[in-house]
C-alpha cells in the first residue's frame, strides 16, 4: 500500500471496524437522537432595567414561526418565588421546559419550610448552570434569559443574563434579541453612571414604553401587546395586555420626516 493511499483514511473512522455489517449500530431501526440545532417557535426581545426602588422587565406576547406571527398571546415573563421574574427570548418550547424546571425548583425549595426564600441571584445561578450543562452536552436550551428581582435581605435591585452557551453577566440594563441593538442605547441613557439610583418608577416605565414603541416600529418579529413586571421590596406588580400608541400616517404628517410642517 502506497503512502498516499494511507493518508486517504487518516483521521476517518474505519467503518468496517467500528460499524461492521450486522452490528447493533448498523441494524438499529431507532430514530437518531434529536438535538436542538436551531430554534423553531421563537420569542424576540426581553428588556430589563434597574431603577431607584427596584427593577422593571418587559417582553411582548408574540411567538413567531420563522417570519410567521404564529402565537400572539404567549406570556414570556414567569414569576418565580416571591421577588423574581424570569423573561425569555429564543425557542418557546425550550422555555416551557425551563418553566417546568423552575416550578420543580420552587416546590422543592418550598417544601424544606426552613424560612429561606428563593432569591433572584440563586435562580440566576441555577439557570446558568442548567444552560451551561446543556451546552456541554452540545444539546442546548436555545434561550436568552433575563432574571430580574430584588435580591437578598436588603432587597437590592438585581438584573442578570444567561444564555444557551452559559454566558452570564449583570448590568443596570440588559436587553436580548433585537432590543440589544434598538432598545439598549435608550435603556443605558436612563441607567448609566448610576443614574438608575435616582430613576423614578414613572420614568422607568416611560423608558420601557418608548423602547417597546421603537421595537414595534422596527423589529418585524414584535407585537404591540406586551407584559411589564415591576419588582420592588413591596412585591411584584404584573401588568399584562399593555400597549403603546403608534402613528402610521403618511410621512408628510409625521414629525421628523421631510420638511417640517407638523
Amino acid at each position, binding site marked *: 500500500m502506497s503512502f498516499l493511499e494511507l493518508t486517504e483514511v487518516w483521521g476517518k473512522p474505519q467503518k468496517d471496524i467500528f460499524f461492521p455489517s450486522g452490528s447493533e449500530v448498523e441494524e438499529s431501526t431507532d430514530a437518531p437522537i434529536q438535538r436542538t*440545532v436551531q430554534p423553531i417557535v421563537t420569542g424576540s426581545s426581553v428588556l430589563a432595567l434597574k431603577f431607584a426602588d427596584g427593577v422593571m422587565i418587559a417582553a411582548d406576547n408574540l411567538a413567531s414561526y420563522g417570519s410567521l406571527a404564529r402565537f400572539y398571546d404567549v406570556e414570556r415573563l414567569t414569576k418565580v418565588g416571591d421577588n423574581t421574574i424570569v423573561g425569555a427570548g429564543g425557542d418557546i418550547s425550550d422555555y416551557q421546559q425551563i418553566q417546568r424546571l423552575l416550578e420543580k425548583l420552587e416546590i422543592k425549595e418550598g417544601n424544606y419550610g426552613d424560612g429561606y426564600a428563593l432569591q433572584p441571584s440563586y435562580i440566576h445561578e441555577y439557570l446558568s448552570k442548567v444552560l451551561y450543562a446543556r451546552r456541554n452536552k*452540545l444539546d*442546548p436550551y436555545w434561550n436568552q434569559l433575563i432574571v430580574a428581582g430584588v435580591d437578598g435581605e436588603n432587597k437590592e435591585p438585581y438584573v442578570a443574563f444567561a444564555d444557551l*452557551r452559559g*454566558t452570564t*453577566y*449583570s448590568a443596570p440594563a440588559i436587553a436580548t434579541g433585537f432590543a*440589544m441593538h434598538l432598545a*439598549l442605547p435608550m435603556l443605558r441613557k436612563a441607567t448609566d453612571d448610576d443614574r438608575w439610583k435616582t430613576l423614578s418608577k414613572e420614568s422607568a416605565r416611560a423608558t420601557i414604553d418608548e423602547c417597546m414603541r421603537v421595537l414595534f416600529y422596527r423589529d418585524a418579529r414584535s407585537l404591540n401587546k406586551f407584559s411589564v413586571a415591576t419588582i420592588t421590596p413591596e412585591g411584584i406588580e404584573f401588568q399584562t395586555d399593555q400597549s403603546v400608541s403608534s402613528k402610521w400616517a403618511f410621512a408628510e404628517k409625521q414629525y421628523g420626516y421631510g420638511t417640517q410642517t407638523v
Partner: protein
Amino acid sequence: MSQSQFDPYVQNGGTTVAIAGDGFAILAGDTRSVNGYNINTRFQPRVHEVGDDLVIGASGFEADALALVKRIQQRIDLYHDNHERKMSAQSCACMVRTLLYGKRFFPYYVYTTVAGIDKEGKGEIYSFDPVGSYEREWCRAGGSAANFITPFLDNQVNLHNQYVPGSHGKERKPRRLLKLEEAMKITTDAFTSAGERHIEVGDSVLVKIITKEGVETRIIPLKKD
C-alpha cells in the same frame, strides 16, 4: 444534507496583564465583556481572588472561564481539608494544568494566568494555554489584546532591544526586578493604549496586587467608548 451545527463557544473578549516583581505580583484585567460588536456589560471581573493569596486571571469564553475558576476554588477548599495548609502558587499552577488538560478534547476556551508570591518573596506568575501548557514567567499578557501588549511588555519589563546609553547598541541593559509602582505604570499604559486600538478593551481595569501583606484591589478607569 448538512446541518448547521451548534457552536458551543463565543469570544467574550477581555485582556489580562500579569507582572511579577520584587515582593509583589500584579494581575490586572479589563472589565468589559462583549459579544461581537455588542457590549454585554461594562463590569465583569476577569481576575479572581481564590484565597491563599492566589489570584486567577481568565479570559476568552467567559462561561468556561467562570466554570474553571469555580473548580479551582473547589479544589483549593479540598486541598485545605486534606493537607491543612495554604496552597502555593506552584501547586496551584500544577493543579490548573490538570483541570485544563482534562478537557483536552473539548477545551475550556480560556487564557489562564495564576499569580502569587514565591518562598523568597518574589512575584510568581504562571501562564497557560487553553489546553494546559504552562510556564513560569516574569510577565504575560493574555486574551484578546495580548498581541498588542506583549511586545510592549517584552521591551519594558524584559528590556528587549534596550541598550545602555552611549554603548552604541553594544551593551544590553541589565535585567532587574521591577518595583511595584513601576509595574503599575506599565500596566496602566498597557491597558490605556490597548483600549485606544482594540474594540474589546475598555471601561475599566481591575487590578489585584499580591504582596506578603495580602491582596489589594485597585480600579483604573478606561474610556467607555
